[in-house]
């Protein structure tokens, strides 16, 4: 089928000088010369080295823990167990700055005391003069476990009589959406389509493992230099360590990747405790194996869709059930589940909708944030379901989507009105057009398939969190610009975008702007780098702070030139009269005039997202998010039916980003985010057996290499309709979301059968082909015979 791009609505975006240009990122030079200092690169005089002793059992009582031999080892300075830290508990949900009430029961012990609930749970901390001694001391910790019954499957965890991970039961969270009249909707359906889809545990696999160094200073402040997505964790750390909030100072570094895995507290709590107890600098760096063992995973989900449709594809009703595996501690599971629940029906108008979701505690590794945050898992299901509906009805997959796509002014699953542009068809048709005709198959054994996926994804946090960000922007006396903003930069270009925005507003070049970021004490708090919120939140804070400085400058210049302020402009480091640009001054002279007159040259701005109240849990109807991003991803695959191997041939992502602040960075997000989605579809899975990770290193946990991925073509659309600065929308998480379901749809197109469980590994491909050829019965019967010993 040949697709033609749907014409775009006409949008006039103003031509800007800095914003919208693919400028060289402010952080690129340091990173290419090896001069950028990451958290693992710092050392301190007189520094100790730390290690964490962790549980090898997924569910057990600690019968005996004896650290006396470890303590006695020469060179060991400190060993801490739960007995030394009676009150050390960590709040694990809702990070960042919010005055909102936390959920009950979300705390986790910093160190396990009587029971362990997952393999890898921290039990003791060791600080020693050298890393070698610390490692040796690990082997001297004596522990005896009494194994307890564990539960390793979320469905089993919800059954009566299942071992209970946390009292009173294993239900971590439940959400439900009730919209319209589902019964009436199904009654008018011509066809009902039902399918169940599954997604696995995934590791973030950032190339930089967690690391940091901490020390106490002369004011008894515990300083922690660490790679984190959330400097506001200083509050939770203070509570767990037992010091006032103002005695913890997080000095965040540029991150070597985060993707949600450095959103929860990692090494920093251990560093703080050891620095406090030893009063010496302490360094802790996870090995890759410890990183995989210690940090959160993406939630596995089991998602069932039951959809009523008319013959033309119009959805009349949908009933969706979701179960996620929360692992051993809560962390962000309730909110990941909420995002999944709200995204469950996708970017489609479903007037009669019922969603029931539940997250279950198990003795598996704990799960939390991962780029896409539940909405990505939801998309894997709803986009495969749309293709299955098309197949049942004998319609083209695009046609089915087009009759259901949301439009501006429509209401989403929670009844929230979508106010920004919804260019779903525009994005899908562009991605498909760019994909072009199918590549001819090189042999009969190879099948070529094409597929695509659309999505909606929120950007900005849940509005009942009452999210805020602060930024300070100032002009120096020489005309250079300084930004202070607590934003952590994960590598996506967060700080660069802020610099480009300030440069635009203040009429200077990008090289004239310096940013200080990621410091919980010295830079205004900007909130978490999560939820695709920093461009929206801190971008607006910088935009308004710079705007206030600009206003002050133009007011003073207005007196000088005897022109009204709106007759003046700032560009290339000068203020000038718009109608007569010869009349101009360098910003340095204007800054001096302002300083001499006592006028402000700096501004601290507090930007607030819309504040709403929590919704009635009986139906979740109301506003939840500031806005949404829309787009599509399309791929072509070749499937070798003899080996089961899948090769990605083509990949196109097309997204409406509102306004691209730096188009090169946006392309980087689309290509890099989709790469993670492609890996999710084809190869990535943290294999967990009875609570034990069987993919403990990068030799077993495979992520895409340069040989696994094709060029991803990035198509940027700009509706200018977002709530970010200059009409920008967020793209960090949305770039990932449609890629995995697009692959699943392409593989189903190639094979004629669908594999409902990610990842689509060669063994699953071959099994699916066997099933399709009617060979399944034999294999299954043989298996059953083997399993229960009885005859088939």
């Amino acid at each position: 089928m040949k697709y033609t791009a749907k014409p775009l609505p006409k949008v006039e975006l103003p031509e800007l000088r800095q914003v919208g240009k693919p400028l060289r990122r402010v952080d690129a030079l340091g990173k290419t010369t090896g001069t950028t200092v990451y958290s693992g690169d710092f050392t301190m005089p007189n520094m100790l080295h730390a290690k964490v002793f962790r549980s090898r059992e997924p569910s057990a009582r600690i019968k005996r823990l004896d650290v006396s031999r470890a303590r006695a080892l020469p060179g060991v300075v400190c060993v801490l167990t739960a007995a030394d830290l009676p009150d050390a508990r960590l709040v694990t949900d809702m990070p960042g700055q919010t005055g909102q009430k936390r959920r009950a029961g979300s705390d986790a012990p910093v160190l396990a005391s009587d029971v362990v609930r997952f393999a890898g749970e921290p039990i003791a901390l060791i600080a020693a003069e050298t890393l070698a001694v610390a490692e040796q001391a690990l082997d001297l910790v004596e522990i005896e476990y009494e194994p307890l019954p564990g539960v390793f499957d979320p469905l089993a965890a919800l059954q009566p009589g299942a071992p209970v991970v946390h009292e009173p039961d294993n239900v971590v969270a439940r959400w439900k959406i009730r919209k319209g009249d589902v019964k009436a909707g199904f009654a008018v359906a011509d066809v009902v389509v039902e399918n169940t889809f599954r997604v696995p545990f995934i590791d973030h696999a950032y190339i930089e493992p967690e690391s940091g160094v901490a020390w106490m200073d002369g004011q008894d402040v515990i300083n922690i230099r660490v790679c984190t997505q959330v400097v506001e964790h200083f509050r939770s750390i203070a509570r767990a360590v037992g010091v006032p909030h103002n005695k913890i100072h997080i000095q965040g570094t540029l991150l070597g990747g985060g993707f949600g895995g450095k959103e929860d507290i990692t090494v920093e709590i251990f560093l703080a405790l050891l620095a406090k107890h030893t009063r010496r600098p302490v360094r802790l760096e996870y090995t890759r194996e410890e990183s995989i063992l210690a940090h959160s995973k993406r939630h596995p989900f089991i998602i069932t869709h039951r959809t009523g449709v008319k013959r033309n594809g119009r959805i009349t009703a949908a009933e969706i059930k979701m179960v996620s595996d929360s692992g051993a501690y809560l962390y962000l599971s309730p909110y990941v589940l909420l995002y999944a629940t709200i995204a469950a029906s996708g970017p489609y108008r479903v007037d009669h909708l019922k969603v029931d979701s539940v997250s279950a505690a198990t003795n598996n590794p704990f799960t939390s944030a991962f780029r896409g945050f539940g909405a990505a898992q939801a998309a894997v299901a709803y986009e495969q379901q749309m293709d299955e509906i098309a197949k049942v009805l004998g319609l083209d997959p695009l046609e089915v989507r087009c009759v259901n796509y949301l439009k501006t002014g429509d209401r989403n699953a929670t009844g929230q009105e979508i106010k920004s542009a919804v260019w779903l068809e525009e994005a899908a048709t562009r991605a498909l057009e760019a994909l072009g005709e199918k590549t001819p198959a090189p042999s009969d054994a190879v099948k070529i398939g094409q597929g695509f996926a659309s999505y909606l994804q929120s950007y900005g946090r849940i509005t009942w969190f009452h999210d805020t960000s602060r930024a300070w922007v100032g002009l120096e006396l020489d005309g250079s610009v300084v930004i202070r903003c607590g934003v952590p930069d994960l590598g996506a270009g967060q700080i660069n975008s802020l610099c480009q925005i300030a440069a635009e507003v203040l009429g200077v070049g990008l090289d004239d702007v310096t940013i200080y970021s990621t410091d919980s004490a010295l830079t205004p708090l900007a909130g978490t780098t999560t939820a695709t919120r920093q461009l929206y939140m801190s971008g607006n804070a910088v935009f308004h702070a710079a705007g206030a400085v600009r206003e002050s400058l133009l007011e003073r210049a207005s007196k000088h030139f005897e022109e009204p302020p709106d007759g003046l402009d700032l560009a290339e480091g000068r203020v000038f009269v718009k109608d007569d640009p010869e009349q101009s001054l360098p910003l340095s002279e204007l800054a001096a005039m302002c300083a001499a007159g006592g006028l402000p040259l700096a501004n601290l701005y507090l930007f607030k997202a819309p504040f709403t109240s929590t919704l009635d849990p009986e139906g979740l109807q109301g506003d939840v998010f500031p806005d949404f991003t829309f787009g599509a991803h399309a791929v072509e695959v070749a499937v070798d039916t003899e080996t089961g191997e899948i090769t990605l041939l083509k990949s196109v992502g097309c997204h409406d980003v509102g306004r691209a602040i730096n188009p090169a960075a946006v392309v980087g997000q689309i290509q890099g985010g989709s790469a993670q989605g492609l890996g999710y579809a084809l190869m990535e899975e943290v294999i967990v057996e009875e609570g034990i990770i069987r993919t403990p290193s990068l030799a077993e946990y495979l992520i895409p290499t340069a040989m696994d991925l094709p060029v991803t073509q990035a198509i940027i659309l700009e509706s200018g309709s977002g709530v970010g600065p200059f009409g920008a929308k967020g793209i960090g998480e949305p770039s990932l979301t449609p890629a995995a379901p697009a692959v699943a749809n392409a593989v189903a197109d190639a094979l004629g059968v669908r594999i409902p469980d990610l990842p689509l590994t060669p063994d699953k491909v071959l099994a699916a082909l066997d099933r399709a050829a009617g060979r399944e019965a034999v294999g299954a019967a043989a298996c059953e015979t083997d399993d229960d010993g009885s005859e088939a």
Partner: protein
Amino acid sequence: MSRHTISVTVNGSAEYVDVPSNMTLLQMLREKLALTGTKNGCEAGECGACTVLLDGEPVNACMVLAVEVDGREVTTVEGLAHDGQLDVVQQAFVEEGGVQCGFCTPGMLISAHSLLDRNPHPTEEEIRQALVGNLCRCTGYTRIVRAVQKAARGRV
């Protein structure tokens, strides 16, 4: 643990380093010589973040013992630029947006530099093969491949 004093040329300067026999080249560079540009991503030869040139050949510094480099030449990311001028590969990575979080970048640059020394006009396939041992989690490799192609065009 026995100790050895080795002589090694690192980025053009002669160094005499006292190392225990179980110390890796990666540890020596980062801890003994404070050359922290070379990154530690796995210490198992899987991620390529610690790729350096050993006598002109790319190796994972975590898989080489420091004593093995006695009398040899090592080039790290800090040794790519000369007289304040970026190497053509570094320049291309900056211009093409081949850098995001930057943690894989030093290893990528070394692998790319080495490829272009061996093969000044690589095909896209050859570039991808040369970078297969360098994992990147941010870019999807597209801009990195583009950067190497640009660097190949820029080298005389």
